[in-house]
């Protein structure tokens, strides 16, 4: 897979504040890339530079083989962006909004109507076309935001916290559409999110803190590097669990043992087979990775 986004030594400051410092990473074509960090970590600055909204102080950005400095117009046609908050015109209907945004890419007339019909089917908003965007629910508005971002068939979809504040069913529906696009159109998805379970589904994760990369890798690599495994042991008594000699906590109907890795877990099972009648081994979660890497937790957009 080729690199569709290549960022090298990117830096950007606002006065004394160093928003992004010497950032370098790559995104491969077709992958789901998660870009994590607390608010103010530098995620939005990076995205704004990629979209040509902000200038950079130094470094280079290549998107689909095009240099950002010399081919911005071409790059803009390859990017679709779903902003953190909806930026559509609340007073106008869904149809009017999409018509004006499609026109920005030269999509007018029959081409507009054909694409509108495709997206309305995909995102199920045919019945919303005449309704003002301001009167839509959060989930409905998000679908229209995504339709706007997809209108010109971008190669890269940038999703800036796309599911924040949405109910689980709407989140699921949105992720189904994104998965469909990745599978059928080989679309690259560049995601920022505060939901770690979404980040866990990514092909590759970069965590930034204070404008610098703190950790990167696949979710598995990050979990293996920054967290241990958990053995949940059912039907055991506390005295037996104590004998194992590892850190544990009592949960509702079991004990959860913390071990450094899966190999250690296997060793314990072999050593105490009589205790391991009913158990499960799980890897650490992305929340644990984030906490270990940054010393902070992410919960629905708040820093703890």
């Amino acid at each position: 897979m080729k690199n569709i986004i290549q960022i090298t030594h990117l830096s950007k400051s606002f006065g004394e504040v160093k928003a992004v410092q010497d950032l370098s990473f790559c995104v491969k074509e077709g992958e789901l890339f998660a870009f994590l960090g607390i608010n103010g970590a530098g995620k939005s600055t990076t995205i704004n530079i990629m979209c040509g909204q902000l200038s950079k102080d130094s470094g280079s950005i290549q998107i689909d083989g095009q240099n950002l400095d010399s081919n911005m117009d071409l790059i803009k046609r390859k990017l679709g962006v779903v902003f953190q908050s909806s930026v559509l015109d609340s007073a106008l209907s869904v149809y009017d909004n999409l018509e004006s945004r499609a026109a920005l890419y030269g999509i007018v007339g029959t081409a507009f109507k054909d694409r509108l019909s495709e997206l309305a089917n995909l995102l199920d908003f045919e019945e919303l076309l005449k309704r003002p965007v301001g009167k839509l629910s959060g989930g409905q508005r998000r679908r229209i935001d995504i339709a706007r971002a997809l209108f010109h068939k971008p190669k890269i979809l940038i999703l800036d916290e796309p599911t924040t504040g949405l109910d689980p069913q709407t989140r699921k529906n949105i992720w189904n559409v994104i998965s469909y696009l990745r599978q059928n159109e080989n679309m690259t998805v560049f995601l920022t999110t505060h939901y770690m379970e979404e980040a866990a589904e990514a092909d590759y994760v970069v965590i930034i803190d204070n404008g610098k990369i703190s950790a990167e890798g696949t979710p598995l690599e990050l979990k293996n590097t920054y967290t241990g495994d958990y053995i949940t042991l059912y039907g055991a008594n506390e005295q037996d669990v104590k004998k194992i000699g590892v850190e544990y906590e009592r949960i509702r109907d079991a004990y959860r043992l913390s071990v450094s890795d899966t190999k250690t877990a296997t060793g314990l099972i072999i050593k105490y087979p009589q205790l391991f009648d009913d158990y499960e081994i799980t890897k650490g979660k992305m929340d644990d990775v984030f906490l270990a890497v940054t010393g902070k937790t992410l919960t629905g957009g708040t820093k703890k």
Partner: protein
Amino acid sequence: MSVSLILIKRNIKLFFKDKGMFFTSLITPAILLVLYATFLGNLYRDNFTSALNGTVQLSEDLIDGLVGGQLISSILAVSCITVAFCSNFLMVQDKVNGTIKDLRISPAKPATLSLSYYIATLVSTLIICFTATVICLVYVGIVGWYMSVFDVLLLFLDVLLLVLFGTALSSLINFFLSTQGQISALGAILSAGYGFICGAYMPISSFGDGLQKVVAFLPGTYGTSLVRNHSMQGVFADMENQGVPGEVIESLRDSLDCNIYFFDNQVNVPTMYVILGVVTVVLIGAYILLNAFKKKI
């Protein structure tokens, strides 16, 4: 439909759907109507009668025509500017609510976006101001009609020029605004202040000497004077026919801002057109340059 046309359509629709912006733009003309209905109309009627000093007896119709002419010229002179500013606030609101980011991530040229704001403001303002002109003419027709067809055509030309000027000025000023607070502040200053400095609430001739000299530097003053000239010309012509002495008419023209003086030199009507036209072109040029040289943060 081309990109520009669709964007212009979007901007016009947004202005007319945003009741806040639309009604804010009509505050100053509404204040004027209330002022005239409550006391300004009577005040001016008494002033005209006393200015004639009992030398000539004028018909009630003629006096009403003069007061009506002053009212409609005030309303039109103010509306062309305030409506243009309020309509152009869309440009700032797009910055406030982040919509401009959505427009700028597209490959559409910044010049196309800027031009769409300018033309949309122009069209919205023209729709409102031409409608207002027609309503004003109907009003004058009821209270006392003295205008010729040529006066009416020139009045429409004056409104067009003032709208072009107002749109250019608002584009330039709104370019620097980026918050809701700034919109509110400018809206308030404009609603309260423009009616005053353009002589809509009280004639410029009644200002102190210093203020009159300052106001003579404002291009809008000449736009107001043009509208005044063409809405009251017929009344003065009829006065002349009824034997009112020329010096009395001139003094009325002075007091009603039909004659504007730049440091004691009277500015004639063709010069007023030139001033307004040149300033409008310069403002549009400055707006284009600002957009062309705007740097990313």
